[in-house]
């Protein structure tokens, strides 16, 4: 079924009885040409582009819970292309271009809103670093505008510019940055993949990976064994467990990241604002809730909930930056499990097992990467060759020393 404005109106007139489920609920077949483990944003986008770009339609996405239950439904939805290092820069630039055509490509409203992202800075040194970053973004063909303090004030008059700890010197505005509706991205790719024949199999946990003579031959699941000559591991925070089924030890440590949302308010924050010094960022959802978050809880964890010290820290940072939000009531908070890599950059690569591929290490920045990750992982699985914008996202770069440490914080997993 194609969605359109006309369809919404006619359905509205006739009691909304004509809508059909957005995807099927098939039973797993005994064999597929390719299997994707993990029905998060990246797994679904990979399945979609395998079908759309490479004509591979006899494929299944195996999801242990339901579609959208992982980080794809837990993130704070910032979409941006403001990376600095070659390797990341071209990848996220490609991703932002795919975002800009996503809604028409999927025939799905993902509420992508390029409202502008402003990263604040608070010292001369930080300003220099942001000038350099802005130039790297422009060189990549993306957009960046340096704002001085008065420039920031025009956009964000409600900030406390004179706060004693981190007075605001200015900001880097990325006009094409913004946000989107996270669930809709999962649903849009799920529906698009299903329409092209992909089987989305929910409540199907992969419990083993079958390997014979160095080649992958299938997977074991809670719904029986399924054969396939190509398997992609795309399970975000659970990457270490699934890779261990193929005898791999990954450069990943899993950490919890929390987020918060307030009651719905009238429009008050029109951009995405990030306050790096205080570990705080915020935007306002289309429903009116202020969506905000901060840093990791800092210790390895698989509990999808956080601890109180970080709650306190995030609230304090928010109050420092924009005291006006103190009167909003926090409605909910939650946590998601992040696959933290030792250089803060992702991995899209083959493995030592023939036919087995891995896409992981998204840290807390994998939402914006969903389309490009799917695009490049599909390219890799279909052709056996890395896509040109994902060439540097190699699994062996840690062993060879070709790290992509965007923040220059060293190899400690939780510092990125």
């Amino acid at each position: 079924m194609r969605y359109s404005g006309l369809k919404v109106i006619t359905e509205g007139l006739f009691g909304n009885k004509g809508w059909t489920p957005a995807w099927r609920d098939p039973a797993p077949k005994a064999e597929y040409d390719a299997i994707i483990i993990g029905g998060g944003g990246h797994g679904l986008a990979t399945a979609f582009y395998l079908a759309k770009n490479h004509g591979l339609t006899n494929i299944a996405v195996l999801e242990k819970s339901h579609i959208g239950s992982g980080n794809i439904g837990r993130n704070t939805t910032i979409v941006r292309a403001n990376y600095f290092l070659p390797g990341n820069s071209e990848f996220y630039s490609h991703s932002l271009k795919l975002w800009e055509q996503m809604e028409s490509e999927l025939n799905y409203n993902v509420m992508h809103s390029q409202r502008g992202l402003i990263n604040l800075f608070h010292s001369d040194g930080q300003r220099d670093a942001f000038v350099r970053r802005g130039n790297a973004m422009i060189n990549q063909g993306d957009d960046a505008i340096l704002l001085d303090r008065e420039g920031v004030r025009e956009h964000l008059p409600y900030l406390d510019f004179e706060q004693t700890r981190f007075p605001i010197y200015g900001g880097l505005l990325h006009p094409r940055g913004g946000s989107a509706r996270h669930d809709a991205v999962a649903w849009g790719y799920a529906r698009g993949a299903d329409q092209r024949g992909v089987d989305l199999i929910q409540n199907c946990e992969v419990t083993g990976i079958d390997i014979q003579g160095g080649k992958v031959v299938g997977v074991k699941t809670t719904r029986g064994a399924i054969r396939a000559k190509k398997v992609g591991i795309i399970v975000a925070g659970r990457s270490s467990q699934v890779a261990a089924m193929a005898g791999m030890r990954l450069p990943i440590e899993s950490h919890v990241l929390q987020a918060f949302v307030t009651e719905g308010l009238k429009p008050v924050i029109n951009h995405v604002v990030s306050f790096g010094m205080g570990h705080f960022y915020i935007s306002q959802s289309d429903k009116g809730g202020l969506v905000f978050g901060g840093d990791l809880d800092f210790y390895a964890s698989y509990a999808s909930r956080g601890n109180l010290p970080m709650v306190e820290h995030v609230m304090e940072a928010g109050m420092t930056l924009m005291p006006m939000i103190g009167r909003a009531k926090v409605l909910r908070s939650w946590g998601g499990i992040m696959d933290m890599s030792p250089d803060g950059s992702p991995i899209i690569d083959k493995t030592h097992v023939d036919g087995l591929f891995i896409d992981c290490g998204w840290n807390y920045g994998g939402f914006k990467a969903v389309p490009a990750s799917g695009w490049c992982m599909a390219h890799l699985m279909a052709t056996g060759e890395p896509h040109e914008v994902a060439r540097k996202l190699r699994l062996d770069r840690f062993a060879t020393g070709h790290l992509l440490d965007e923040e220059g914080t060293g190899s400690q997993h939780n510092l990125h």
Partner: protein
Amino acid sequence: MRLTCPLCGDRDRREFYYYGAEDYLHRPVEGAPLADWDNYLHLRDNPAGVVRDLWYHEAGCAQWLVVTRSTVTHEVSGVELVAERTVGRAK
């Protein structure tokens, strides 16, 4: 979460700095093959279950601790001083 430091007693999590898995105790010897450094710095078991990791009692006795805890429930089952540890000594 709270940790019971062997020297200072039961303390709030905020007094401690987290470093990472106890793999950091197995620093390769000089001249060791690069694969050993990769293991030491990057590769992790990263279990959903019991883990032994390194914490620093920054706001207390300034000792490094090996904490045995569950990454799923956050339950802590043991804290020992790195200086006096009985298991996990570098080979």
